[in-house]
C-alpha cells in the first residue's frame, strides 16, 4: 500500500448525502478483474451532466473530494475506492462514512477524513467561492488546513501508523502465525468444513 503522510490539493465540493457505491462505480464496471482502469466509471451516471461538479473545467486536477454525510453506503465493492484513486483523488472528507467503504479506503491508502458537518459546510463554501483554494490533509498532525480553516480530525493510532508507513496488513498478521495455529488447534470438531481435508 502507498503511504500517506500529507497531501495538498484543490477540492471538489460534492453537495450530496448518501452517495452510495452504486453511484461511485456502477455495477457493470465490476466485471473487470484488475484494480485499475476504473477512472471513467467514477460517478458515471452523474458525469453525463456537463454541469456536474466533476466536469467543470475549474475542478480538473482536483485531488480532495469533500462530500455530504453517509458517503460510500451500500455494496462492499472495493472498486469504489479504486475508482476514486484511479481518477486521482488522494483523500475524501465527509461527516460520516459507511463502515465497509471506510475500511476499504484505509487499506488502499485513500485517506477518509471525518470532520463535523459545520467544517464540511465551511470547506464547501470556501472551495465553491474559490475553486483554486488548496486544502491540506496532514496525517502526521491529524489536521485539515485551508484558508480560514484549521480542523483536527481523529483516526485510530493503529490505522494511522499503518497508513503513514504504507504497511501491508497481511504481512503484519502473518507475524502472528503461531497465534493463528494455536487457535486452529483448539477449534471444536463440530464446526463445519466445506471439504474433507
Amino acid at each position, binding site marked *: 500500500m502507498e503511504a500517506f503522510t500529507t497531501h495538498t490539493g484543490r477540492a471538489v465540493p460534492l*453537495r*450530496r*448525502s*448518501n452517495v*452510495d457505491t*452504486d*453511484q461511485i462505480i*456502477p*455495477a*457493470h464496471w*465490476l*466485471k*473487470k*478483474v*484488475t*484494480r485499475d482502469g476504473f477512472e471513467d466509471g467514477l460517478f458515471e*451516471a452523474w458525469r453525463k451532466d456537463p454541469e456536474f461538479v466533476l466536469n467543470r473545467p475549474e475542478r480538473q486536477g482536483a485531488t480532495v473530494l469533500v462530500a*455530504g*454525510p*453517509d458517503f460510500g*453506503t*451500500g*455494496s*462492499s*465493492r*472495493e*472498486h469504489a*475506492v479504486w475508482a476514486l484513486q484511479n481518477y486521482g483523488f488522494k483523500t475524501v472528507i465527509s461527516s*460520516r462514512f*459507511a*463502515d*465497509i467503504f471506510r*475500511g*476499504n479506503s484505509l*487499506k*488502499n491508502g485513500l485517506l477518509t477524513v471525518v470532520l463535523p*458537518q459545520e467544517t464540511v459546510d465551511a470547506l464547501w463554501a470556501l472551495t465553491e467561492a474559490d475553486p483554486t483554494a488548496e486544502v491540506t490533509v496532514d496525517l502526521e498532525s491529524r489536521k485539515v488546513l485551508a484558508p480560514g480553516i484549521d480542523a483536527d480530525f481523529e483516526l*485510530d493510532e*493503529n490505522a494511522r501508523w499503518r497508513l503513514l508507513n504504507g504497511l501491508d*496488513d*497481511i504481512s*503484519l*498478521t*502473518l507475524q*502472528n502465525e503461531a*497465534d*493463528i495455529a494455536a*487457535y*486452529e488447534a483448539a*477449534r*471444536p*470438531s*463440530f*464446526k*463445519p*468444513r*466445506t*471439504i*474433507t*481435508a
Partner: protein
Amino acid sequence: MGRTLAEKVWDDHVVRRAEGEPDLLFIDLHLLHEVTSPQAFDGLRQNGRQVRRLDLTIATEDHNTPTLDIDKPIADPVSRAQLETLRKNCAEFGVRLHPLGDVEQGVVHVVGPQLGLTQPGMTVVCGDSHTSTHGAFGGLAFGIGTSQVEHVLATQTLPMARPKTMAITVDGELPADVTAKDLILAIIARIGTGGGQGYVLEYRGSAIEKLSMEARMTICNMSIEAGARAGMIAPDETTFAYLKGRAHAPEGEDWDAAVAYWKTLKSDEDAVFDAEVVIDAAALAPFVTWGTNPGQGAPLSANVPDPAAYEDPSERLAAEKALEYMGLTAGQPLRDIKVDTVFVGSCTNGRIEDLRNAASLLEGRKVADGVRMLVVPGSVRVALQAVEEGLDKVFKEAGAEWRHAGCSMCLGMNPDQLAPGERSASTSNRNFEGRQGKGGRTHLVSPQVAAATAVLGHLASPADLSDAVTTAGV
C-alpha cells in the same frame, strides 16, 4: 456484567488481542463469488501465498450469471471472462466451486445456509455486503472488501475493531400481510441509512422469535442498509430444526455438542447494549420505498412525502433529488404508482418461503397487462423445491417469467435490467439510482406486495387484491 450475543461470538473468535491494535478474529467460513475475488487471488499469486484453509472456503457464481439460456455460452464477453477467472482461480488454488449449471449453484447467501454451512456462533465473511444475511443463525457475519478477501484467503483471520451493539426489540404480533421485509424496511426508515453505523444489530423480542429462518434471513440481510455491518438473531429451536439433517450440519455426538454450545448463544439478561430501539410489531403495515435509498420508505397507505417537510437540509435535498429521479410528485398516493416490472428474487427474498408467499397470491390470477414479472429463485435447490411444489406452474400460468437462479435484477451486472425510466416493484434490497439498470426506478417491497402489485399494475398490498375481487364481483 453479562455479555451480548455479539460479544460472546466475538470473544470466541479472538486469535490475538493486544493493546492499541484491532483484535485479530478467526473466520469460520469464507464465501467467494466472481465479482470481488479476482484481484484477491492476484494478490496471493503476486506474493506467493496459498489459501490457508481450503476447508473453510467455498465459491459460487451469482452476480454475472444469466437467468435464461444457461446451457449456452454467456453472451457478454466481460461477464464470461469474470466467471472464467473465478473457475481458473478455484482450480489453481483448490477452492470448492459450484459454477453455473451445478445443483448447488445460486446466490451465495442462499447457498451457505441451505448447505448447512452457516451455523450459530460462527464468523462468516464474504466480499459482499449482504453477508449480514447469515447472522440470522446467531453468528457474526459481515461483508468485506477485496483486500480483506485476500487477507482471509491468506490468513483465515481479519484484524477488526470491536463493534458497538444495538438491540432492536420487536414485540407483539405482526398484523396479517405484514412480513419480515416490511419490518426491516420500517426499521431502516426509523433509524436511517447511517443509524446502524458502527453497530452490530441484534433483533430480538417476541415478534422476532416467531419468525421462520427465511424471514430472519430477510431481516438480517438488510442490516447493511441501515449502515450496520452485521445483524444477528439468537439461535433457538427454529434454528436447530432448520439445520438438522442439512449436508454440513453436525451429526451424532457433534450435533449434541454443537446444540449445547448454540444454546449458550444469547444475550445475558444483564447484558448492556450501547443503543436500543423498540418497535411495536402490531403498529406495522405493508411498507414500500419511494426514494433512492432504503431509508426513504413509508407505509403503502401513505403519500409520497413533501421534501419541504424535512427540517434537516441534507435530508430535504436528498428527498428532492430522489423525487426528481423517481419521477414522483409530493403528495401523490403511493398506491397510485404504476409499475412496468415486478421482480421476485435476490438474497433478500429469493428463498422458498418467499416464492410460496408470492405464488399463493398469484394462484388463479393474472399479471396485469403491460407488466413484466420475473421470478428468480435464489438457488438451484430453491428452484427444484419450487418445481416440486408446482410453484413454477402457478407463476407461468399467471403470466410471470420463471427464470434460473442468480442475483438477476437485484443489480445491473447480468442481462436482467430495467430500461431507462422503467419502474419496478422489487423484492431486492437496494433502490439506489441505476441499481437495477441505468435510469431504472426501484420500489423495494415484500414478495406479497410484489405479487399484488403485479396483478393490479400499481403498488398494492394483498388486501387490495381481495378488495379488487369484491369490486369485480359486484
